[in-house]
């Protein structure tokens, strides 16, 4: 059973922000900041690999609209969009979803920090990925 499928089927209540034929957006019940919204395809796809390109395009359009609405209607200074693929990436619900998280200058959320590649490492990694 998938909790998002249950929400979309109306078996579990949610605060629906927006819905259309293929996509739904609802408030995360455990928000990082108020207004934290999840955007999901109605059909169950686990991750970015599984979702067909045309459905992904439908989802991404709603992500953009939700972000605009958060910016226009909440007192915020920015937003983050997050999407995790796989348990190792912190994906908790195995039904593809984008998080749209409102941000304030003083919300204190810490960002992941980067480091530098060692000599030659960057090219070695690139050659494994490039296409």
């Amino acid at each position, binding site marked *: 059973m998938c909790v998002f499928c249950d929400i979309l089927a109306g078996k579990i209540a949610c605060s629906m922000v927006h819905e259309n034929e293929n996509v739904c957006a609802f*408030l995360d019940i455990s928000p990082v900041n108020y207004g934290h919204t999840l955007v999901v395809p109605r059909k169950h796809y686990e991750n970015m*690999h599984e979702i067909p390109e045309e459905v992904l*395009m439908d989802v*991404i359009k709603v992500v953009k609209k939700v972000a605009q609405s958060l910016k226009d209607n909440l007192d915020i200074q*920015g937003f983050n969009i*997050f999407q995790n693929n796989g348990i190792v990436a912190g*994906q908790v619900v195995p039904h593809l979803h984008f998080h749209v998280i409102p941000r304030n200058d003083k919300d204190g959320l810490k960002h992941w*920090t*980067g480091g530098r590649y060692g000599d030659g490492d960057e090219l070695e990694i690139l050659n494994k*990925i490039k296409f």
Partner: protein
Amino acid sequence: MDCIFCKIINQDIPGYKVYENDKVVAFFDILPISPGHTIIAPKNHVADLEDLSEADFSAMAIAVKKIGKAVMEGLGVKGYSLFLDNKSAANQHVPHVHFHLVPREEGDGLERWPSSGYGEGEAEDCLQKIKANL
């Protein structure tokens, strides 16, 4: 144009390019959160998501799907995180809209942000504000 991403896209400064098509370029972040950390940006210079066309944003998402597959297969990782920071309050450093694709591994120590529940009536209040123009 004084945008560092535009310079990379135009090859005025070097970058490790992962993928390119007519709308989108993907290249390595020089300060990687994990090896293979890739930036996906539209060729058009647009600072914020609000000003990006749906066509460009869709092209970025389709590119992510392809690059994510290549990263997982090439590096043998079991997942990746994707994020977009919009405005400085959200940690956007380069004002040229972009996704970060970060390969993930078990025990990499990258934590999710803490979250909590809404108080009585707060979710309804929040919902009404957001729904106003959707």
